[in-house]
């Protein structure tokens, strides 16, 4: 979902963006990618579009819906709160949580 926050993308772009954003930790194949797309479409978190100016008619483009954006911001807020709590209580001092602050 984070890969779609900036703009609509087609499947391969989502795959590349997720890999780039995670520093190479998330390496999806087409099966996992489209399985996740299927589930997010079913949950109405994303929707299909024609793409920017009908760039490539063969490809399906996807973008976040209002529901998807809300869900994502709530999730990010939840993570942020968890990190703040862990930092305040100085849990796991060995991983220096301040380095990961948002």
């Amino acid at each position, binding site marked *: 979902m984070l890969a779609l926050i900036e703009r609509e993308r087609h499947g391969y772009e989502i795959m590349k963006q997720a890999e780039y954003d995670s520093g190479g930790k998330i390496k999806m194949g*087409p099966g996992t990618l*489209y399985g996740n797309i*299927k589930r997010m479409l079913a949950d109405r978190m994303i929707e299909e579009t024609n793409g920017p100016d009908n760039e490539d008619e063969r490809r399906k483009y996807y973008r976040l819906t209002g529901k998807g954006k809300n869900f994502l911001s709530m999730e990010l807020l939840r993570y942020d709160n968890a990190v703040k709590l862990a930092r305040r209580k100085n849990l796991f001092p060995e991983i220096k949580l301040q380095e990961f602050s948002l």
Partner: protein
Amino acid sequence: MKIDKINSVIYKIVLKLYPAYYLEEYGESMEQTFRDILTDDGAPAAWIKIARDLPGSLIKEHFDNLRSGVVGITKRNNNIGLAVLVAGYLTLALWLLAIFTGVELGLGIVSYVIVAFFGFFLLLSGVLFVTSLVFNVKESRVSHKLSKGLKLTLISIPPIAFCYLAIVVKGLTEGH
């Protein structure tokens, strides 16, 4: 270019292992994505990516398929039968390919990858075969006629049996 086309055709065959409704919706996009990976990263990297992705996504999609009840029982049984057929003959093709590369290229990363694929498909076809047999025999007994899924399952016996026998024979002869 020709190599890319061959890789795409092989991938298209591999895609048949996914549930039919899933393929109908995403098959073309998956093929396009595979072609993009081929163009950017080359064939070995593309196949490594597929090999890492395939087992998990296959199990997940088939499980989703069974759970959601998107397809009727007959169609589901046909799909499982078709999956056994594809997996069975793909396993046989991989066995032949493993022997060919072993003889021609010797032991190396290519032959290890092919053997790993062979192992995975051997296991997959075994599991699918038993599952298909259970579902399709049940359907055939209820309808009093051989279901299409059962016919497909029976056609897939020779390659699967051959591959399992080959493994057993190899194990026995190496044991002595």
